[in-house]
């Protein structure tokens, strides 16, 4: 189980892994040829049979999503990739696209063929110049190779692919906000239903998939659904990218079957830096309730993480050791959600503002135990009361940190401020220690 399974990352160590020549050398675009020789519905069936679930956080089965697109409706369909990777801690799609944009493009062509879309979009965040370059070049080269455009490989299938570059807004990672943004509006979430599969981009049936989900498709087509679902756990099939960051000796990307544990990953990453103790961690980004060392052996699959009170999310494992003040961490995340709240729903817009005020006071040692009750009360009044899950994400670190680290909050009041020296938690401190 603990063995790593590099599939997406298998050839990232080739210097030219991002070029069409580098991708083709390892069989790139052969899955496309195989898929285009199949019936579109058969392609959807393979993805369904593989058990692939969305890698962007929600874990919805990808093939099922594709199957929701109504067929024979005489309307345009759109295939949209969510590359707006912005969830704090999440850093998998960006290096994937820098190292191999073509695997995403091949997945897009296969997916568009399956759902019968003739125009696809990649919505990428605007703060990653070099990834934008690599994608623009890769799209150009794919058109030149005849895998995009009119009559692809003589099959009569046409597909245009447009790179849409964002301009700085976390909320556009929410799929309906993304669609509003792509239509040229402020990126604000829509009320659902209707879901994008019925009324998405320009009110047409639309699939919105995460980068890693789509990039997993070419390998599934090539090696088959059974190969994919032989990896992972009963309900969480296949392999995925786990991103370890923070106070680990060797942070980085680890591609492994779903169900690996943090203890196993930490072993591979050389453990916590300086031999320090693990204090808290996020299993899937800042919107997923934090875990502690109690959860080192929780299998990192959708069901087990959920059963332990959090969410697998984007498998963004942010690791914090004992030098970190939990309140400082939570306050900063809360400031993030306040900044990124789109302002559409009152509970989120006003609530995140109040949470920042309260947590700021608490971090400065101003407050009492009663304030902690008030903090939780505000959280309860924000959760589940907005169009999208941003506010639910905002309260996750607060509620979970109060569950595990209530004493740390109280220590701030007793101390009249933060009792922890922020210098000890920096990377420079590690280098000084010669670790």
């Amino acid at each position, binding site marked *: 189980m603990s063995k790593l399974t590099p599939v997406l990352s298998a050839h990232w160590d080739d210097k030219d892994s991002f070029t069409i020549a580098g991708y083709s050398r390892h069989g790139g675009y052969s899955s496309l040829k195989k898929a285009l020789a199949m019936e579109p519905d058969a392609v959807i069936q393979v993805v369904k049979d593989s058990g692939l679930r969305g890698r962007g956080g929600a874990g919805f089965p990808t093939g099922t999503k594709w199957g929701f697109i109504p067929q024979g409706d005489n309307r345009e369909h759109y295939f949209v990739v969510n590359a707006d990777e912005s969830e704090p801690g999440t850093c998998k799609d960006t290096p994937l696209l*820098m190292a191999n944009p073509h695997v995403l493009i091949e997945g897009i062509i296969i997916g568009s063929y399956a759902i019968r879309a003739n125009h696809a979009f990649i919505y990428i965040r605007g703060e990653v110049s070099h990834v934008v370059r690599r994608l623009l*070049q890769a799209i150009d080269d794919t058109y030149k190779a005849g895998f995009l455009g009119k009559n692809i490989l003589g099959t009569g299938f046409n597909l245009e692919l447009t790179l849409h*570059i964002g301009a*700085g*807004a976390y909320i556009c990672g929410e799929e309906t906000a993304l669609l509003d943004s792509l239509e040229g509006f402020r990126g604000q979430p829509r009320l659902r239903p209707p879901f994008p599969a019925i009324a998405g981009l320009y009110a047409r049936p639309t699939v919105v998939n995460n980068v890693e989900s789509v990039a997993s498709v070419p390998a599934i087509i090539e090696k088959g659904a059974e190969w994919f679902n032989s990896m992972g756990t009963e309900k969480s099939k296949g392999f995925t990218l786990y991103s370890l960051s*923070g*106070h680990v000796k060797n*942070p980085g990307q680890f591609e492994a079957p779903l169900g690996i544990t943090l203890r196993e990953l930490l072993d591979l990453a050389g453990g916590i830096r300086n031999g320090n103790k693990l204090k808290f961690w996020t299993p899937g980004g800042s919107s997923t309730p934090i875990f502690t060392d109690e959860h080192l052996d929780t299998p990192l699959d959708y069901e087990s993480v959920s059963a332990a009170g959090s969410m697998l999310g984007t498998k963004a494992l942010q690791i914090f050791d004992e030098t970190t003040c939990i309140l400082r961490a939570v306050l900063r995340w809360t400031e993030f959600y306040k900044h990124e709240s789109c302002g559409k729903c009152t509970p989120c817009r006003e609530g995140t503002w109040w949470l920042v005020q309260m947590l700021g006071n608490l971090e400065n040692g101003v407050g009492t135990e009663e304030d902690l009750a008030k903090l939780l009360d505000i959280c309860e009044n924000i959760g589940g009361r907005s169009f999208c899950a941003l506010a639910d994400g905002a309260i996750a670190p607060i509620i979970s940190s109060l569950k595990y680290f209530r004493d740390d909050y109280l220590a701030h009041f007793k101390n009249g401020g933060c009792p922890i020296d922020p210098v000890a938690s920096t990377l420079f401190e590690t280098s000084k220690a010669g670790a």
Partner: protein
Amino acid sequence: MSYDEKTNEQMDAIIARYPRSRSAIMPMLHLVQSRDGFVTPTGIEFVSEKLGLTTAEVYAVATFYSQYKRKPVGEYHVGVCTNTLCAVMGGDAIFAGLKDHLGVGNDEVTSDGKISVEHIECNAACDYAPVIMVNWEFFDNQTVESAKTLVDDLRSGKNPAPTRGANKVSTFKETSELLAGFNDGHAEEGVQAGPATLLGLKIAKEMGA
């Protein structure tokens, strides 16, 4: 209220990418920044006329997204990640150190117009924390000292190479043209992946996977 012929053609090329013209608004605003250095009233009027929208509709979009600037930024716009993980790992110290070193506050420009500094949110490079972005190019694993050297080099025209990016940092205006979707031809430069990206693969190969 007009731009040169090349800009006009680029605006039309952007509109042609989309089934419906309004979708072009974001790349068009990036292109405005590539010409004017920020989103100017002239740019807003131009975009609104091109797309048949009111200026209020264009302003609504321009003011929603943090990469659209309402006033000039430096030739090199330096973003220091101060979201939780980078902040804890040293981003807070780096941001404070840079403001002090340059004598500017958040979102301010040095008097020579070369450098502006801004604290930014998570930029999807947590395994390289603490991270600095210069015109949205990655400078990984920074320290207070390396950050000061970085901005000094940028000011003196040395133009250091990003850790994972092109051979040199483009100017803010050049970058904005790239973000409008125009390939600047530098995709082949730089590494395909940094060491943290390759760590799992390296270990897997050592284990014989």
